[in-house]
């Protein structure tokens, strides 16, 4: 992890190269986070890749309910030469949860962005195949959102249904 000073330097370099792309930094428990502007995410990740963070290890979503902007997308970067990790995070409003897909640059993000879309409803523009991945294709809602209730799933009890009926509710 870059130390607190290194993180500030890195964030400074990024905002010089891409104006208004860095919204803030956070150094917590020895782990460095850059809070990025969603509009510049591809450019930021490309810049960081040139800095040595060549591996995107994980993409995952977070729901900050009830804070706004509610949805978060987290990118975990790894530099295998300096053995260094960096987290890039962006926040999106639920009213327009759109962000550019990084799959064209990082093929590993393909399934992971699909999972974030499935679970949180974040739409990745430019993703080659943005479909649900874990939930059924006709599923409604995004179950990992914090306001989605646990146990809210309707269950169809078929025990007493007459034999031969097609169990439609």
């Amino acid at each position, binding site marked *: 992890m870059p130390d607190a000073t290194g993180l500030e330097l890195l964030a400074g370099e990024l905002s010089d190269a891409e104006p208004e792309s860095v919204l803030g930094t956070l150094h*917590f*428990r*020895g*782990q460095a*986070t850059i809070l990025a502007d969603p509009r510049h995410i591809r450019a930021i990740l490309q810049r960081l890749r040139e800095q040595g963070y*060549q*591996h*995107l*290890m*994980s993409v*995952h*979503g*977070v*729901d900050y309910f009830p804070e706004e902007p509610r949805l978060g997308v*987290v990118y*975990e970067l790894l530099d*295998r030469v300096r*053995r260094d*990790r960096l*987290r890039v995070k962006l926040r999106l409003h639920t009213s327009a949860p759109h962000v550019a897909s990084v799959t064209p640059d*990082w*093929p*590993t993000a*393909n*399934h*992971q962005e699909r*999972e974030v879309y499935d*679970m949180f409803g974040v739409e990745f523009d430019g993703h080659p195949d943005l479909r*649900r*991945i*874990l*939930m*059924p294709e006709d599923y409604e809602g995004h*179950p*990992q959102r*914090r306001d*989605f209730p*646990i146990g809210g799933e309707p269950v169809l009890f078929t025990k007493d249904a007459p034999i031969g009926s097609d169990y439609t509710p």
Partner: protein
Amino acid sequence: MSQLDAPRTQSAYRQQEESIELSHLPGPEGDAPDQELLTLNMGPHHPATHGVLRLLVTLEGEVVRDLKPIIGYVHTGIEKTAEDKPYWKVIPVVERMDYLAYFTNAMAFCGATETLLDIEVPKRAQYLRVIHMELNRIVSHLVWLGTSALDVGAMSMLWYSFREKETILDLFEYSTGQRMHTRYFQVGGVIEDIPAGWTDKVLEFCKIMPGRVDQYGALLNKNEILLQRLRNVCALDEQTLVELGVTGPLLRAAGNPWDLRKAMPYSSYEDFDFQVPIGVNGDNYDRFAVRMQEMKESVKIIEQAVAMLPEGPTMVDDRKIALPPRHELATSMEALIHHFKLVTEGFRVPPGEVYFPVEGPRGEYGCFVRSDGSSKPARVHMRDPSFVNLQATAAMVKDSYIADLIATLAMMDPVLGGIDR
């Protein structure tokens, strides 16, 4: 290996067979068209998928032209469930994600929570964790070895590898009380010290295991059928694997020595002397060989950890996190209060976000935990290596035979519980 590389004389039958020029055989109505594509649905209930994995395969004749994995059949919402439980109750559900790497999953989650709490786990607990994680790695590789040998036609291998797997599960039962999904790792250490005599049994096992790995090797490495199905089959270069985010033995088989235990040690892995086996070609045989060697290296780590096992506590002494000792409950009011609060509400964790990666049997297991300051995590995400590695299937099997798809899937070792979570 040299006798295998020597040119072999072909039998008369094989010579006759190979002399037939199939391309000149006319089809039923003139020359058979060779451009017709067939979409085949494999799974979700196919034994060779190691779980409920569905593959949509586009075939041209016997050759795979495209492949789309369809997953989610065992999605149980573990990450959602975890948000509704106190931290200590999350451990058992997290263990059930990748059900062959339960100690690794628990380590990733406990490590993340410990980072949030900013606590240092006692050395003895760290060593006990290492011993259990490495035994777990051997279990996982043994299950992989048995089932994937079955997939490529070697049936007896399963019984031999499960014999050793049972031995390890007995060791787990002895030390933790459970054979699988043990909930042995706790936030702040391990739940209990190991029983007397356990280390002797572990060392006994460590003594026989390298020989057993050699036996498996003798059984498989000289098997002509197995070698033909693995050697130079479905190789993928290091660069593509890296771009697809593949980690673990699959990446090491292509020659990239990335292993988090060496590169970014956690839980005292820097204390142990072990090697990281890597492959050369990145084909199925290398994937097989790397895992075989990893089992031996794990044995080396376990032997060292047992030999150097320090004395001391197995749990942090922070009473706001660790349960009080059982005998204090009858005599100490404060112990009783803390026990009650820890069991009912659980401990509270300072707000923040951390990502804690560990090296499991299949690659990088990274647990992302967000705390909002309450006693329940606000978000738990497991970066499961099977889920990410699965994306490489299409790249590996493209333009090879459908039979090689089965062998490749076996050598990839996906665990569907981890993929679907």
